[in-house]
């Protein structure tokens, strides 16, 4: 193994590590605010990648149907309450329906295939991000105060539904999108692919952006307050429903963006997102599902370990990556004095 291979593997590792880090941050974020372990995080990645690849291949944007379906479903779910209280539903319910229909018309009428890649990316985000809050409203809002175990089970069930729908929408074939730009950057003995640089740079921008959002803006601080103490935040006028929706929107955003970023690098299938997001989970666990920096570092480590084990023991790549969680758990178990009480 010479320096060139090390650099090459390191480059690969950092690329996937950056994606895992983004997902790990999103998992920690959703967990600390809503207590939901975001198992369906990976499906947003799949959706993002598939939407990009689909547009570029000139396929119809089937995800618009999913968005429309979810918006209708939430409106229907709001009907019994409207009937009971004789009061109109929250403005967002109708707003989202209008938005979904409008987006459906836009996607139908635009020549998606020939649009610039930036516009394709923005349309993909416009399509997927609203699914986050919609899913929160439909699946988690009614049971927001339930036992953590119930939330986890619903999360797993939602993952199953989305993977099934993903197969239905995209079929079993893999898809890959075009790279953002050709060429690369030559640094010493090694050539950095342009897409790799895009991934690393955009991930860093996003991480810094999240940091600024949570530390400098009122909404960010409100979300953090909810994460620290839900009841206390509610008493300060921060709606837990809003916090839940916002965290799911962020999760959908981060997931879709990750999908857009990696779609040119690797062929993704309808169920690829799950394994990718689970590696984000391994990273999140290293941070105890609490610490953002440790989670990001851990996830980057997962990417590197994965990349180097491809070289040494490629058959055992997944085994090694997922067994990696055990030493971290052991370490946490040894350093945690009391067994914590269930939330």
């Amino acid at each position, binding site marked *: 193994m010479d320096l060139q291979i090390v650099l090459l593997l390191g480059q690969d590792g950092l690329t996937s590590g950056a994606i895992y880090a983004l997902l790990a941050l999103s998992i920690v974020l959703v967990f600390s605010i809503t207590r939901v372990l975001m198992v369906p995080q990976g499906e947003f990645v799949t959706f993002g990648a598939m939407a990009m690849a689909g547009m570029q291949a000139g396929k119809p944007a089937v995800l618009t149907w999913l968005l429309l379906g979810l918006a209708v479903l939430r409106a229907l779910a709001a009907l019994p309450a409207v009937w009971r209280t004789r009061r109109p539903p929250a403005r967002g319910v109708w707003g989202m329906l209008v938005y979904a229909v409008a987006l459906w018309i836009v996607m139908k009428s635009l020549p998606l295939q020939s649009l610039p890649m930036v516009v394709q990316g923005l349309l993909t985000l416009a399509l997927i991000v609203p699914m986050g809050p919609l899913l929160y409203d439909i699946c988690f809002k009614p049971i927001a105060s339930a036992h953590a175990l119930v939330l986890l089970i*619903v999360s797993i*069930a939602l993952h199953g539904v989305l993977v099934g729908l993903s197969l239905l929408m995209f079929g079993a074939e893999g898809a890959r999108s075009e790279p953002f730009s050709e060429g690369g950057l030559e640094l010493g003995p090694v050539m950095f692919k342009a897409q790799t640089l895009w991934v690393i740079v955009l991930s860093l921008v996003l991480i810094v952006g999240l940091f600024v959002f949570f530390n400098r803006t009122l909404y960010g601080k409100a979300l953090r307050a909810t994460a620290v103490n839900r009841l206390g935040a509610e008493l300060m006028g921060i709606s837990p429903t809003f916090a839940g929706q916002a965290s799911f929107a962020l999760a959908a955003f981060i997931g879709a963006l990750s999908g857009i970023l990696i779609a040119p690098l690797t062929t993704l299938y309808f169920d690829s997102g799950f394994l990718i997001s689970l590696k984000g989970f391994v990273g999140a666990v290293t941070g105890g599902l609490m610490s953002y920096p440790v989670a990001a570092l851990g996830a980057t480590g997962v990417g590197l370990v994965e990349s180097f084990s491809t070289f040494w023991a490629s058959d055992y790549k997944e085994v090694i990556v997922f067994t990696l*969680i055990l030493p971290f758990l052991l370490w946490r*178990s040894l350093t945690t004095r009391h*067994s914590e*009480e269930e939330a």
Partner: protein
Amino acid sequence: MSALPTSTVRSEPAMTPSSSRIRYAVPAALAIALVAAVPVLPSFYVTLLNNIGLAALVVLGLVLLTGVAGMTSFGQAAFVGIGGYTTAWLASNTELPSWLQWAGGSPLAALLLGVLLTLAVAGVLGLITLRLSGHYLPLGTIAWGIALYYLFGTFQSLGGYTGLSNLPALKLAGFTLDKGEEIFYLIWALVLASAWAARNLLDSRSGRAIRALNGGQAMAASMGVNVFRAKLTAFLLAALLSCLSGWLYVYTQRFVSPTPFSINAGIDYLFMALIGGAGQLWGAIVGAAVFVLAKNGLEDILPKIFGSTGNYEAIVFGVLIVLLMHRAPGGIAGWVHSRWGGRGARRVVPDAPALPRNTMPARGAAVLKVRGLTRRFGGLVANKDISFDLHAGEVLAVIGPNGAGKSTLFNQLSCCDTPSAGQIEFRGRSVVGWNARHIAAAGLARTFQHVKLLPRMSVLENVAIGAHLRGRQGLLRSVLRLDRSEESRLLAEAKRQLERVGLGAFLHTEAGSLSLGQQRLVEIARALCADPCVLLLDEPAAGLRHGEKLALAALLGKLREEGMAVLLVEHDMDFVMNLVDRVVVVVFGEKIVEGLPEVVQADPRVLEAYLGVAE
């Protein structure tokens, strides 16, 4: 004996013999009909029944783990895989290493090795996740389930992703079970035997320790339960049942590949438990049956609707589970239970000889000495330099406005929390840093301000948890029902304590259906069941009616006569001042006064704390 008035509360419904007979008659008739029908059923249906049985074994373990112990695992399919692959490898490999020669071709040896391997793996996984909060076990099992799936697929000696085929039939005691109709009997005999063993377990001292986990770990530990061991036991038992299912699977299918042991299969098992209802053992069989049958039907119907083949039943089951969690988290069994009532009449608690009692400390001896106790939570000082003594044969009240740090004090005294500084001496020994379980064993029992009972469990069994440390019978003897004489002594003790607090008429009522005041009395009975010499009562009179308060005061007076040291936190001043010997007043975490009730009542500092003063 003081009897508390219990006039207004509905008494438990009388369970007639006929209704309990129907309860058993229906499943028994079904079982007999099935067994009789197997020889003439088309083999397709026999295969379905076998699959239901195989799944039911795994789901039974999940019911113990999820419904009873309040933990969960997505990795049960991986344990099925360990059992299955061990068996398949030993049965198919002609070149076993010399130290394994003895096990080649022997089904029972394969089962033994599979079980040992499963216990080792589950043990390691449990050791590193069960001390952590509840999220780490499911996450750990997901990661581990995926890792094992890839491992099965990678090993060439295990046939890679194509698997091992043409495995031999099961030969046991001279019989060869090479048809589905034959192995059917073995599968279902093992399902029923496991369900019987699980039922025995839940109805015993060891089982109550596991059930107590669902009532909060602080409660279980304060009753002397080794929380970690109880969790590990439940996890190992669930893994064991999965391994057994894997062993049977290999001899039923005569083929293994990694797919049935993947993480998706692990999720399916959990869904079966939830659909059937994780709160009841029979929910496991119902859940497995509904899931296997529905999956079979959907696999036929859905491709016709969607026009292509695919794993579409996952969509239906996913939606079903979300709806179930929203509308009926108890599953089918929970729904039946809430509609048609509890588990039926329990046998009469026999009059068993009383349990041996601990020697009480000498009257007037200082059993609890607190010196300079301080507890900080970050910048907040909840207790600051508190000192007092508690003597045998004395009732001492700690009073103070809300937020004064009384419950924090209680938690430290019962070793549920560790002081930041200061000393606690219990009968001459420093107990700082002890586990709640150890101080319970030393003779301190407590109740909780927010009642911690298991609402779906009978009052009698709830109280019997308190007697945990007065029994010795372990898991194996409980499962085999060899623990009955001790068990009846424990239950008789629980009954005695319930009669003592005036709840003798509610032995078999679900604890959750009692009024709050009565639930507090159940907690006191549970604490008394531990045969303590120090009793910590956190707001025992809150929610009690006037008559009940008088009776409680009489009971505490009697305990004082017997030499018990009682420390209580209480807001009801009439109750406190007429009962207790001394009062400690805590304000903003500091002790301001200690003394006789009438002295404390007249103290200007106390008046200021409670009423404020005119400047």
